């Protein structure tokens, strides 16, 4: 029987439309970002008159007073143009941050799938080999995501954008009045060169594992013995050690360093939990989609059930880490730590608490019942909410540090999300056509096909 997937031209078109629409949104976001403080004043004035302003009454009065009295706003009691300059930087950061968040989110899915895939090999799991090709399809997005991430990081290092505050050279210059002793103390780790070298090490490691594991499972398909299977086992075990160290450092570098004064010792785990739950959700969704198209006839409801169990379990694991991080900081109430959550609760109240409902309460109640985990459309619905929730999670990790109060889910955010979604779908489903959907060489294939919960 022919088990090779053929990419429907409709799906291709669908992905391309998403990319084009997303790109238009993104570019519009960049073009409409204010360029001078005059633009900011105009935006704030129109927002306040529309009644959209989220700032307090004094700020409204200030802005209103400005427009009436003095077009240049030079003589402001609150420090002249400093406020507008600050907001200008936030608004200029916004399209970059939106781009960064969406690209990181889909990178996370590919990387999480790779880690999950490595766990299946290292633990010699018997239930999952029928899903290997689906996972390999999703991880095919990893090389492209890695290139995009490294380009974005290089743009930051070369000061094309300013989303990483610590990269500002004035902060570590003792002569400057912006000199920041804390950031200066961290420059051994947080400096452009070493930052990029680390990024290259992480990405080279992930992509090397992805390349060889894929190649060796394909070799195993046509092998007479288990040689490639054994090699893959050793490689997966080695990769997982590399991954768990570098994943942690990667999340400090690429996410936590947005707030360079703040740190959390379990941040790596926290990002990891979000990564795993998003990845497993995408594995389940792609599997269900392919099944609905008449492929993967060897995947049964028990496989979907197991994936849904992982979605449920990792949602709770994520909440556990979220709460562990939150409670200690809340309890201790140390100013430099608690500022992280105060910013989020005050300026990002809805996404902050909304994400908790989407990532915890929703999967907890929907996926608790054993029977519901086997209902495919139920898993898809829960999956959509979980993915949206984890996008907002990344949003909450990045945006408060880069754009502060000037956030909004608008064209740049939705455009970036659509663009990367289209790219992801295009790359993943093209990769799925490149090999039979059954990794028939796996010695556990018989067990996996018969898998029954």
């Amino acid at each position, binding site marked *: 029987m022919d088990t090779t997937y053929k990419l429907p031209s409709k799906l291709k078109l669908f992905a391309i439309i998403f990319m084009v629409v997303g790109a238009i949104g993104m570019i519009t976001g960049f073009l409409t970002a204010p360029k001078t403080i005059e633009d900011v004043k105009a935006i704030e004035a129109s927002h306040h008159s529309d009644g959209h302003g989220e700032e307090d009454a004094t700020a409204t009065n200030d802005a209103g007073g400005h427009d009436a009295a003095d077009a240049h706003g030079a003589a402001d009691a609150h420090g002249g143009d400093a406020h507008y300059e600050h907001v200008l930087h936030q608004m200029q950061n916004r399209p970059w941050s939106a781009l960064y968040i969406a690209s990181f989110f889909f990178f996370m899915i590919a990387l999480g799938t790779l880690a999950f895939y490595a766990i299946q090999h290292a633990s010699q799991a018997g239930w999952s080999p029928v899903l290997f090709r689906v996972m390999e399809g999703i991880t095919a997005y990893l090389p492209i995501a890695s290139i995009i991430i490294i380009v974005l990081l290089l743009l930051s290092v070369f000061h094309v954008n300013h989303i990483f505050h610590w990269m500002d050279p004035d902060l570590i210059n003792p002569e400057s009045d912006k000199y920041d002793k804390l950031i200066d103390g961290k420059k051994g780790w947080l400096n452009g060169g070493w930052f990029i070298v680390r990024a290259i090490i992480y990405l080279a490691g992930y992509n090397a594992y992805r390349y060889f594991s894929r190649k060796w499972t394909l070799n195993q398909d046509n092998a007479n013995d288990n040689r490639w299977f054994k090699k893959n086992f050793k490689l997966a075990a080695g990769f997982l050690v590399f991954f768990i160290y570098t994943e942690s450092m990667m999340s400090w570098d690429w996410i936590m360093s947005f707030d360079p004064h703040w740190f959390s010792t379990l941040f790596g785990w926290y990002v990891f939990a979000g990564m795993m739950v998003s990845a497993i959700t995408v594995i389940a969704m792609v599997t269900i989609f392919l099944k609905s198209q008449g492929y993967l006839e060897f995947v049964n409801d028990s496989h979907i059930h197991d994936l849904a169990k992982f979605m449920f379990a990792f949602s709770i694991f994520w909440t556990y880490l979220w709460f562990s991080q939150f409670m200690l900081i809340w*309890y201790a109430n140390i100013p430099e730590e608690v500022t992280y959550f105060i910013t989020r609760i005050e300026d990002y109240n809805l996404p902050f608490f909304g994400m908790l409902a989407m990532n915890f309460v929703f999967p907890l109640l929907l996926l608790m019942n054993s029977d519901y985990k086997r209902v495919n459309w139920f898993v898809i619905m829960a999956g959509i909410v979980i993915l949206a929730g984890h996008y907002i999670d990344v949003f909450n990790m990045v945006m408060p540090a880069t754009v502060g109060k000037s956030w909004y889910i608008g064209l740049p955010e939705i455009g970036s999300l659509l663009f990367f979604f289209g790219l992801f779908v295009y790359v993943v489903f093209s990769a799925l056509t490149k090999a039979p959907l059954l990794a028939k060489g796996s010695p556990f294939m018989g067990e996996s096909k018969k898998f029954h919960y």
Partner: protein
Amino acid sequence: MSKVIHAIYNDDDILMNAVKAVRKEHYHIEEVYTPFPVHGLEKAMGLEDTRIAITAFMYGCVGLTVAIVMMNFIMIEDWPQDIGGKPSFSYIENMPAFVPIMFELTVFFAAHLMVITFYMRSKLWPFKKAENPDVRTTDDHFLMAIDAGHHDVDQVSQFLTGTGAIEISLHDKEDDH
């Protein structure tokens, strides 16, 4: 007096196939005694799904409620505590401190009450006389009790031998269950 046939098997796979075959012939299985839980046996026997999960959810909700009411009384109302230097004296504002207790009591209630429910539904309590008709079912044998009803006992026995039973015996039905 109604009779019951005891068929003894010495392998869980053979037992499973026998249960399916017996049900196909429309004989009534009263009970199956096994030394360990046999995966899928309840489905093969056509037993109703357990409702213990629903009770577990309800017990969990009770535990959560008890935790909230208890912590609210102890820490907020009866002897108001200044928690973490935040003397707000409000349950909701101090909730992060109570989450571990809320979680633990949810699990505690769900687990313990679920076990107690299971014992009660299974009619198990201390000093209870064992119901299994053959002590070997606590070691390495499996026993299927089939209602003889109006069937021809010899014919049923023959059929059971065919399904792999190693021993077949006829007993009077006890009335206590």
